[in-house]
């Protein structure tokens, strides 16, 4: 046959879908002939594989069956002709059913079979059954890789329908193991040496697949040990060996459970006493806990020498789990009773338990030291004093008595808690080269919103400049911008800066309407309703840059009116006046969004001086004079006057503005008032904030202050009004720097408590609290409280910083925080224990912080004492410790009344009584 004939033969065989014909065809070829055909066979396989995927859902069952057969034929021919390097590229999908695989390889007998099988099983352990078929056919050796054992975990048990001929119906895993000597004698022991991965491990298999006894590895191995097919002692040892190997916590769990399931006798446990004691030093907490339980059983059976316990127990005393440490202390106490001569050496290990954060653990440790006479041993006294800073205030006197020295804790007062104190002036970009450098930098990292504003201002100032080599210099920016837009970067600010760059470099202003932009963005954020007018600060950003490009194309080189002039994000009145005069002199018009933004960012400094120097000639200047505190005749541009009011008196209503422009909307002449509360939808509860007056009319784009309140309706369409990425949220925080409460309220709607994310954009809502000029009111306090209970470590960290700084600088509305706590505490959303941890850390900063946290906790105890919030005991314990540290009894009458009504013997009742006993 010619080459052409062969190639046609391959196509014909595949199209026929007859496996046996393919196998017969291959059998007739020698290796040289096979290699000649490999190119065509591989091409045919790839094509067929693609077709198989493409038609996965669209073909009829009959066609599907034919396609399956054809693909299998293509696999056989590819496998029977390809070189090992080609097979490596084709991956595991080229492998046909086990028997056909064996047939192909038996005929071919390649020298590289063992190496290929190793790679195959390592690449995809689920090829186990195919590999076993090859082994049993004598075609290859047993693979040595871990993948083979991982494949066995899932591939050997009759857990699911399988194509393996080895698994007859009614078969059990135990029968399988008994019948295959190499699995029984070798492979099952490697199960204890191979950790597995996220997909294939003994833990994962038994949790998700092998729950039935017939296919459970636990039940099978125990059954095999019971009939002496495999050695019980070896199983006990192997499971402990596995626990020594530092497998990940989830995967290590199976081995400790398996060991427990073997129910070792006292003799068996005693023979492994050293192993259990060693496992107390494991880095896996559940393994420590497992070992400690075994040690406890040995101790109960009086088979645990005290000296061995003393030499091994220290790691368990340092565990984070409270129960582990308490049990360890108990075992030491029991050992000391049994072996009085070893009391000093047992007592020497106890002080390390004082590092535990729980007061009751520390108390138990101190008790034990005292009972064992540790206070008479200088080394132990010294060890106790070493832990002075870690010991709870209520136990410090007790510890001092044991250590025989006063354990005075360093009181922290000098923490570096000040927010950004100094105000610096923002210098504008002064050349096209600098503009280019900044633009390229911010396209990669626009995390500082003031830098973004400086850049946009730089574009306004230098964008119209055209040098001879403009195209060459702008080339890298254009290329990068195109890439970001093509990649549809989800960061709105990067997207907008890239869009602006393309607008500048191509000289074309995008003419899309606001609606078109909405539709485009809606493709990234499907919650947005394409048919409704979109309102968001992203659109505000876009509209402003759109007008900016129009001015650049008109040849104007004028700054933005609204570009901040200082590091707080404010624009000085002097700068606004000068910029506006520049526009008038050039005959240019500024847009309403930029003008309103400039007024909202008006600096609170030197307003009266600026007002004196201003001689209002046009509507903008009249609005500016009004914003500066002067009296002006109102104009017609509603967004401008609302911004002027917001800059002038954001905390007081203005009847004229309200009447002429307000439309009953919040923060449009009427100050928005917030109530932190709780909403429930379909039994799903979540913290919320309600604004008065409600938004009941359409909000024009230029009503920048009111845009913040769109999210109040709980409409998913407006939930992202401040943006979906952290950089957009950061930019939104610069819109109204004088009054951030509406911005903070948006943070509450974003459910900051229960979503741990890799890069949580909600952190952006907390960052303004770190700025020294920002007061944190009702909405801010509510947000802060939720942040302190967040599951997300990034949010919790920034909330902690914000709480520490705002308390230190008296910028936090403590009553707002207390009220929010009172509201959220009974709801149990979020769980109170998270506040306990955060409050404990905040209160460690200074005496002032202690006092504030104590007042907030005490002030929140207002709900029904018969139905106390779960985990409230921890908060009340902290309240007690803070009262002791401040040396000041509880005076909040409602809290006293609450605690007086608490019954029971739990932590809440116990510490409640202690608090009341303080007087």
């Amino acid at each position, binding site marked *: 046959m010619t080459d052409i004939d062969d190639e046609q033969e391959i196509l014909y065989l595949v199209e026929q879908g007859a496996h046996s014909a393919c196998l017969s065809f291959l059998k007739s070829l020698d290796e040289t002939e096979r290699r000649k055909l490999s190119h065509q066979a591989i091409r045919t396989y790839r094509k067929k594989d693609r077709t198989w995927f493409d038609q996965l859902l669209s073909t009829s069952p009959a066609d599907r069956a034919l396609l399956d057969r054809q693909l299998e034929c293509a696999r056989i021919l590819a496998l029977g002709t390809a070189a090992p390097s080609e097979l490596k590229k084709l991956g595991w999908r080229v492998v046909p059913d086990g028997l056909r695989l064996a047939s192909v390889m038996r005929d071919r007998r390649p020298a590289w079979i063992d190496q290929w099988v190793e790679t195959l099983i390592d690449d995809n352990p689920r090829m186990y059954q195919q590999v076993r078929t090859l082994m049993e056919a004598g075609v290859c050796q047993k693979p040595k890789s871990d993948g083979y054992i991982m494949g066995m975990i899932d591939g050997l048990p009759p857990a699911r329908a399988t194509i393996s001929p080895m698994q007859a119906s009614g078969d059990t895993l135990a029968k399988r193991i008994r019948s295959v000597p190499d699995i029984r004698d070798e492979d099952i022991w490697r199960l204890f*040496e191979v950790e597995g*991965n*996220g997909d294939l491990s003994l833990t994962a298999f038994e949790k998700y697949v092998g729950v039935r006894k017939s296919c459970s590895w636990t039940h099978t191995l125990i059954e095999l040990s019971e009939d002496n097919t495999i050695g019980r002692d070896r199983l006990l040892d192997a499971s402990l060996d596995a626990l*020594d*190997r*530092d497998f990940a916590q989830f995967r290590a769990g199976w081995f400790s459970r398996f060991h427990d399931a073997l129910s070792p006798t006292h003799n068996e446990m005693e023979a492994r006493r050293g192993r259990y004691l*060693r496992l107390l*030093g*494991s*880095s896996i907490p559940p393994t420590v806990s497992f070992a400690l339980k075994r040690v406890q059983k040995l101790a109960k059976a009086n088979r645990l020498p005290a000296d061995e316990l003393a*030499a*091994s127990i*220290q*790691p368990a005393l*340092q565990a*984070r789990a409270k129960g582990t440490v308490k049990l360890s202390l108990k075992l030491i106490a029991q050992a000391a009773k049994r072996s009085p001569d070893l009391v000093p050496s047992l007592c020497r290990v106890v002080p*390390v338990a004082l*590092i535990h*954060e729980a007061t009751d653990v520390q108390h138990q440790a101190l008790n034990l030291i005292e009972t064992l006479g540790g206070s008479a041993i200088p080394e132990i006294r010294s060890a106790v004093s*070493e*832990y002075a*800073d*870690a010991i709870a205030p209520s136990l410090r006197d007790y510890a001092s008595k044991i250590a025989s020295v006063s354990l005075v*804790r*360093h*009181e*922290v*007062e*000098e*923490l*570096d808690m000040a927010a950004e104190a100094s105000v610096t002036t923002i210098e504008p970009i002064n050349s096209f080269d600098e503009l*280019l*450098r900044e633009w*390229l*930098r911010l*396209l*990669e*990292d626009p995390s500082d919103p003031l830098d973004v504003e400086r850049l946009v201002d730089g574009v306004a100032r230098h964008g119209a400049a055209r040098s001879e080599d403009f195209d*060459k*210099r702008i*080339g*890298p*920016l254009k*290329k*990068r911008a195109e890439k970001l837009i093509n990649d549809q970067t989800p960061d709105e600010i990067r997207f907008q800066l890239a869009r602006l760059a393309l607008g500048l470099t191509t000289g074309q202003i995008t003419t899309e309407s606001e609606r078109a932009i909405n539709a485009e963005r809606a493709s990234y954020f499907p919650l947005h309703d394409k048919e409704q007018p979109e309102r968001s600060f992203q659109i505000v950003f876009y509209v402003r840059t759109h007008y900016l490009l129009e001015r650049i194309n008109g040849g104007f080189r004028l700054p933005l009116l609204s570009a901040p002039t200082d590091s707080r994000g404010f624009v000085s009145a002097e700068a606004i006046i000068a910029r506006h005069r520049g526009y008038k002199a050039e005959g240019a018009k500024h847009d309403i969004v930029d003008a309103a933004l400039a007024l909202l960012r008006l600096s609170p400094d030197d307003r009266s001086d600026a007002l004196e120097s201003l001689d209002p000639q046009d509507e903008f200047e009249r609005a500016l004079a009004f914003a500066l505190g002067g009296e002006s005749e109102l104009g017609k541009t509603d967004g401008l006057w609302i911004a002027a009011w917001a800059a002038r008196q954001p905390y007081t209503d203005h009847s004229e503005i309200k009447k002429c422009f307000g439309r009953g909307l919040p923060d449009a002449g009427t100050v928005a008032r917030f109530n932190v509360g709780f909403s429930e939808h379909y039994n799903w509860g979540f913290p919320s904030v309600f604004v008065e007056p409600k938004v009941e009319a359409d909000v024009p784009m230029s009503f920048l202050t009111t845009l913040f309140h769109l999210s109040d309706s709980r409409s998913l369409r407006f939930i992202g009004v401040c943006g979906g990425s952290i950089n957009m949220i950061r930019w939104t925080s610069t819109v109204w720097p004088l009054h951030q409460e509406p911005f903070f309220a948006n943070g509450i709607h974003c459910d900051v408590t229960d979503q*741990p994310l*890799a*890069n*949580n954009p909600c*952190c952006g809502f907390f960052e303004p609290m*770190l700025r020294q000029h920002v007061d944190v009111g009702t909405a801010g306090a509510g947000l802060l409280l939720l942040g302190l209970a967040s599951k997300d*470590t*990034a949010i919790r*960290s*920034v909330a*902690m*910083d914000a709480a520490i700084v705002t308390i230190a600088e008296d910028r936090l509305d403590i009553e707002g925080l207390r009220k929010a706590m009172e509201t959220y505490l009974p709801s149990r959303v979020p769980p109170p224990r998270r506040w306990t941890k955060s409050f404990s*850390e905040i209160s*460690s*900063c200074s005496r002032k912080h202690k006092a504030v946290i104590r007042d907030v906790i005490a002030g929140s105890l207002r709900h029904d004492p018969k139905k106390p919030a779960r985990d409230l005991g921890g908060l009340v314990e902290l309240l007690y410790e803070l009262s002791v540290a401040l040396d000041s009894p509880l005076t909040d009458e409602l809290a006293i009344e609450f605690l007086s009504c608490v019954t029971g013997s739990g932590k809440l009742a116990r510490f409640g009584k202690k608090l009341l006993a303080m007087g």
Partner: protein
Amino acid sequence: MAAIDHKYRYSYPSRIETDANTSRLHLAAELNGDRDVRFFEGDLLRPSITARNLRAISGIVGTRFYTPPSMVARLIRESDPVVTIARDQIRFEGFSACCSTYVRHDMSPYSYSVNHLSPGTTNVDFQADMRAALAKVRSDTSLRLMVDQESVALQNDTSTVVERKVPLPTRWIKGFTEVQSHLRGMRKAITLSKVQAQQFLRALPRAKADHEQWLIKTASGVRLSTRATQNGVMIRGTQRLRALEALAVDADHLQIWFNEQHRSSAWVLDYGDQRLLLVLNAEPWRGFSGDGQVLSQLVDIDQRVLAEVRAQLAWQAAIDPLHIASVTRQNTDTVAHALSVLAAQGLVGFDLVAEAYFHRELPFDLSLIERLNPRLKSARALLESGAVAIEQTPQGHAADVHSSGVIHRVTVTQDGFTCTCPWYAKHQGERGPCKHILATQMRMDSAA
């Protein structure tokens, strides 16, 4: 992932042998042509601390702190630590599988007694069984450490060679060289007592915390803040510190060092006679290998001076640059530069606490360091294709570099080089020069 096939060859698997009186920790050194090299034999004076630290090293070497989304989470467990036996220091070092974390255990002569010592650097077999065996070492165990190639095999009359062919990522090798420049630029920021260190480490979240945090000193210890502070230490990926939690209880104190330029930090648990050093790169997804801090140094080498300085290396635990300067009759700046180049070539490491380089020669093919460096390769390709045109400007020099369809502008100012490419825009030089800057540097050097 670029990798080279490195074949680890040992004559026996590392093990602990125990008899009635003592235990012997046999660490199998890699076979490399010379047969039966005995590097070290001696008794460990605080065996449980050494064993726990070696376990920690092994644990970190087998950990991937970051898995790229597109990558199958396959750990590079096969990599073995490198041990350097010097006259008065033993050091074990290695990287996490993601190369974002470097770990080294330094043992001073106070932590062991010597029966035999032959200086050298080698890989040591350190797999899962070894880790499990080390768990058995207690404070009352008498333990002898042996680092050699064949003793166990000879004793047991076995001649089977343990071979593991490992696709060793080039970043593993490059990381060893890059991390030295990070260490060189660090300042000591915070020292914590044993209890403060334990409190801090225990308070770290169990979950991954990849966001930027700053460790700041307080009167009673430290706390993490999200705000950058002048004397603070930036850290991302606090999960990388978890290995220290169990070790801190035996330490005298914890020193924290910080490199402000590269934002990497070093955490030194000091036990008096031995130290564990953990170096974290700025981000957990950022391997040291990709930093390119040494690229400029590799471009600018005076081979004659380098050879002279190299000739002075004799397995010193702390190299004295003044001494080398006087012997080679070079000034100290030249010697310092030569040492940093030798560090970039894997021939010396940097001891943070001693503030001095030490001699060790990485047991890999060191010619790969430059050959497999993609940025350096690309820069040479740009230069060879004539893509770099330098011109004089009022501010200094500038170059137009034709690359990937656009012309990137490299500007040379008093503050250094800038470029208009996305790499430079993103990292602002923090992760070393881009290929355009390197090509410009090469062009300027050749012109000079």
